[in-house]
């Protein structure tokens, strides 16, 4: 399965990044690309629990796929959310079910961010996404 275009671009940029500072800068830039959430979307029903920071995940059904939106007050976490969304946005249900998100973050050199002990909550976001789309 080929990578969505934006995901391929992100992968290229992270592959070239040297050191944690560059990766953090890239994350912040990625975070700025997130589609903003309306106040109406920042409601309890969209809140992902299990994160120490406030994180929202909005899952909208479209004809053949899900449309995702995500947001957080923490900048670096926004970057991680953006990296997640570029990988899954626009995929058909069948394609989505096939995606190995752990492998995706590993390719990006960010696998440590996925550990269940990390309070950033990316782990909880992935669980929520798979529940919402199951």
């Amino acid at each position: 399965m080929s990578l969505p275009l934006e995901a391929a671009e992100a992968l290229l940029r992270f592959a070239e990044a040297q050191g944690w500072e560059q990766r953090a800068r890239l994350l912040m830039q990625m975070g700025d690309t997130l589609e903003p959430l309306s106040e109406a979307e920042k409601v309890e029903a969209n809140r992902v629990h299990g994160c120490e920071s406030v994180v929202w995940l909005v899952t909208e059904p479209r004809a053949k796929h899900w449309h995702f939106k995500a947001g957080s007050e923490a900048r670096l976490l926004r970057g991680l959310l953006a990296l997640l969304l570029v990988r899954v946005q626009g995929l058909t249900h069948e394609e989505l079910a096939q995606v190995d998100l752990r492998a995706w973050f590993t390719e990006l050199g960010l696998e440590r961010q996925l550990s269940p002990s990390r309070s950033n909550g990316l782990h909880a976001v992935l669980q929520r996404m798979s529940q919402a789309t199951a």
Partner: protein
Amino acid sequence: MFQPSPWRDDFPAIAALHRQQQTYLDSAATSQKPQALLDALAHYYGHGAANVHRAQHVPGALATQAFENCRAKLAAWLNAGSAEQIVFTHGATSALNLLAYGLEHGFEAGDEIAVSALEHHANLLPWQQLARRRGLRLVILPIDEQGQLDLDAAMQLIGPRTRLLAVSQLSNVLGTWQPLGPLLAHARAQGALSVVDGAQGVVHARPDLQQLGCDFYVMSSHKLYGPDGVGVLYGRSQALAHVRHWQFGGEMVHLAEYQQASFRPAPLGLEAGTPPIAGVIGLGATLDYLASLDAKAVASHEARLHALLLGGLQERQGIRVLGAPQTALVSFVVEGVHNADIAHVLTEQGIAVRAGHHCAMPLLQHLGLDGAIRVSLGLYNDSDDLQRFFDALDQGLELLR
């Protein structure tokens, strides 16, 4: 000026962490362990494990003796009076739950339980849930700007309806010692039982429980450089007699029939099932190690490091320290920067500190925060650890701002 820790090499994990480029500044969550403890565990498991208080055989007798010796050591360490007043649990949390169930029979609807506004969830939720089970009123004692319990308010709020007071000795978020002397005296005068959560306090000043004058005192071994899985509940003899059995099973029973049973008094009656034998023996070894140190030297080392930590944070722009921390730890937030982002950049640079609500969500809410960074110290930390933290913080903030 470099401030070394003379005890650093006694803790092999510090060097191991250093080789992994990790600077450990999260001792309030759990501590690293001295070699003496590792040796004691290796000795116990290497020379023959056995269950305690049941077997007549030689390994069983040796294990029981070692285990009971540790109870006596703890009693001496805490100046508890007698070993019978020391109950082993699986942690501070389980000791507090033991109390909340074991004392439940003494409450009637409308009675009050007073806790401070800064309690760890472990010393809040067992009481909150007890209050809900029994229709009691949970009274929250307010704190002041410094992070100290407001004594005047507490004196008003603790009255004849108060059946129990539960407070921590040293705050795990604010690093403040609470004014226990007058508070406990007042609670006693009102006829209330008192519970002191010493999980943090016990690590930074050796308690004198006969002098402190509380009914119950609770601690966790793993924060005091001991193994995890072991907690301690101290009870004044009369108060302990008031605690009903709460978990049932082996060892705590006196005589058992199919339809009824009779139970042992404390401490064994409150220690159902096989206790954490190796852990208790390990804790005994840790206490021997701690007793061999110059307590004054440890305290002044910790005080100097704490001053460096607090001073360094205060001199930096845009940093808000929570309360007025006195010992062991400092929590802070940075204006305009999310604490999760700070945690991220510190983690990337190998600095192990804690971010978030520190198991005290109501306190953080009260302070108007959704999280904070906490830097906490152990006796093995030195000023280079703090320098690495400050360098990483400066570098991280430059990037984030």
